[in-house]
């Protein structure tokens, strides 16, 4: 086989089976029609929801518990003007992003490692589950004693919640990987690292991405719960402060901000998903 590159006599199978490749002349709509309609539907839905809410509030249900879109908007405008909104959002956003990054990196890593050592995973599984079933709020005093009341504690709380979801989903993804592909790498002389990086990682991507996706809301919830535990800043504080002063519009305004953050993070994970799913047939893509 060492002589291969020198050889000139190669079979004539090359050109014959080359398929016919033509450039596509697609219109703007053919190219972007689907995306556009999806966004149009989303906007329509949001407008409809807001309208129903506005009209029903005070009529079908008590506005003192549900507030009104107009009130919420007014509150957001106020908070934007006096900087409250950005200050608190920025704090929470930092906690969420750090917590999410930490938790998902840890979860993905451990998911990988443990799923490759199934016996170990099996031993630990019930402990991990039992640990996770403990409501973190019940451990608030411990968290305070061990991690203080600063941002660290909230990042940790977010990270811990995220960790679990990413971990379990990654592990499930890893266990589903086709043995044949792993064997192929072993046959090429690949070691554990090659198997992990070149087969398991791409093959378990879907599992991991599902984990990343379901973890987004919990990163936010984790951070907010942390702020409810002990804080004088952040969206969690804003919620409890607004609630304590009967400011329903304030509570909902904060929730709107939280939702927007979640939607943005979700969009980012969606982009990642889109990138790593390019090889899949169109129907299987998100």
């Amino acid at each position, binding site marked *: 086989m060492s002589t291969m590159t020198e050889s000139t006599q190669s079979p004539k199978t090359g050109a014959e089976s080359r398929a016919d490749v033509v450039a596509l002349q697609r219109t703007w709509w053919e190219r972007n029609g689907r995306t556009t309609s999806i966004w149009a539907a989303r906007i329509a839905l949001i407008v409809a929801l807001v309208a129903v809410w506005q009209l029903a509030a005070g009529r079908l249900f008590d506005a003192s*518990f549900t507030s009104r879109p107009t009130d919420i908007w007014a509150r957001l405008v106020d908070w934007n003007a006096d900087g409250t909104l950005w200050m608190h959002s920025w704090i929470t956003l930092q906690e969420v992003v750090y917590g999410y990054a930490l938790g998902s990196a840890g979860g993905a890593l451990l998911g990988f490692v443990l799923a490759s050592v199934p016996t170990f995973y099996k031993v630990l599984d019930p402990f991990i589950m039992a640990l996770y079933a403990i409501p973190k709020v019940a451990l608030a005093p*411990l968290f305070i004693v*061990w991690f203080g*009341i600063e941002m660290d504690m909230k990042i940790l709380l977010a990270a811990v919640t995220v960790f679990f979801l990413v971990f379990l989903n990654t592990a499930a993804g890893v266990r589903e990987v086709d043995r044949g592909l792993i064997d192929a790498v072993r046959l090429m002389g690949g070691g554990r690292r090659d198997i992990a990086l070149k087969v398991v990682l791409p093959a378990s991507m879907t599992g991991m991405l599902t984990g990343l996706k379901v973890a987004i809301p919990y990163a936010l919830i984790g951070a907010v719960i942390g702020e409810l535990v*002990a804080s004088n800043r952040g969206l969690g504080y804003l919620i*409890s402060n607004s*609630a304590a*002063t*009967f400011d*329903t519009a304030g509570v909902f305004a904060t929730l709107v901000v939280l939702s927007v953050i979640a939607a943005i993070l979700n969009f980012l994970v969606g982009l990642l998903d889109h990138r790593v799913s390019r090889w899949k047939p169109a129907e299987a893509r998100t």
Partner: protein
Amino acid sequence: GGASDTPEGVLNVGQISDSVAFFPLYVAEERGYFEDEGVELGERPRLGTGAKLAAALQSGSIDLGAGVLTDALNLYGRDDSTELTASLVDKYYVDIIVGEDFEGPGQDAPLEERIDALKGKNIGITGPGSGTEALVAYLFQKNGMEAATDAKLVNLGADPPAALGALESGQVDALSFFQPVAQQADATGVGSAYISPSRGDIPGFEHTAHGVVFTTADVREQKSEEVAGFQRAIERANKDIREDPEVEKLLAEYMEGIDADARAELLPIMQEEVPDGIGFPKESVEAALEFHESTGLVEDPPGYTDIVPKDLRTE
């Protein structure tokens, strides 16, 4: 107690929530009294429960805790160097609130009858082991009943809107909740204060140490100057609330979402609740201690002199 983590000149003050009891802190802060007295406020976390307040004190995250006396007493049970550093509210600022269509004798009926009317009802409280539960227990005891068996106590969490929601939707018949829930209920037509200790409805229970600032001996030693400055600032704030009608504006900012009528109702009440100075009169502390003991809120509470430092004892 844990050693303080804060640099010199700075005090971290943890408080339970933004209820009426902690208005003096807000006034002192807004009017710059802390700076005047040479204290800088560092972190000011809202911690929600006494247990977390204790944890934060223990871990050195905060230097002073602002809560109710119960929290201080609980901490004392764990760390007997706990002592009070300022009185914020000298009346029991929890009310029994009933809905508009509550069936029973009117508000002007004798206390016994009103208590009897609560028998067998669903009563919303902030949580087990809280001062709101204790008030119900205390009242039922007065009439020879048992709160645990003669009523159904429902734990609603320290969330005023949730409490009002529960009352309005008829999930509970009455609430035992801190101010200004009663005022807000009144102003929004949900209900009204039925039995109010701070109004003087309960004989012998007019004055009780309730909203307090406390700390451990370690902090008091280590940060004696800052604590003294803090005390002076609170003293000035307490005075302002009692005497200066201008604080109404501050109250409006402090209680942003509250109904304007409720706020108008609240101010005079607060002017009476806030003590003159920051000291602890013996009889009001002892009334409180007795209340805690009889309702089982705190087992084996300390004596007046155990918990009130010399300079704050007023006869």
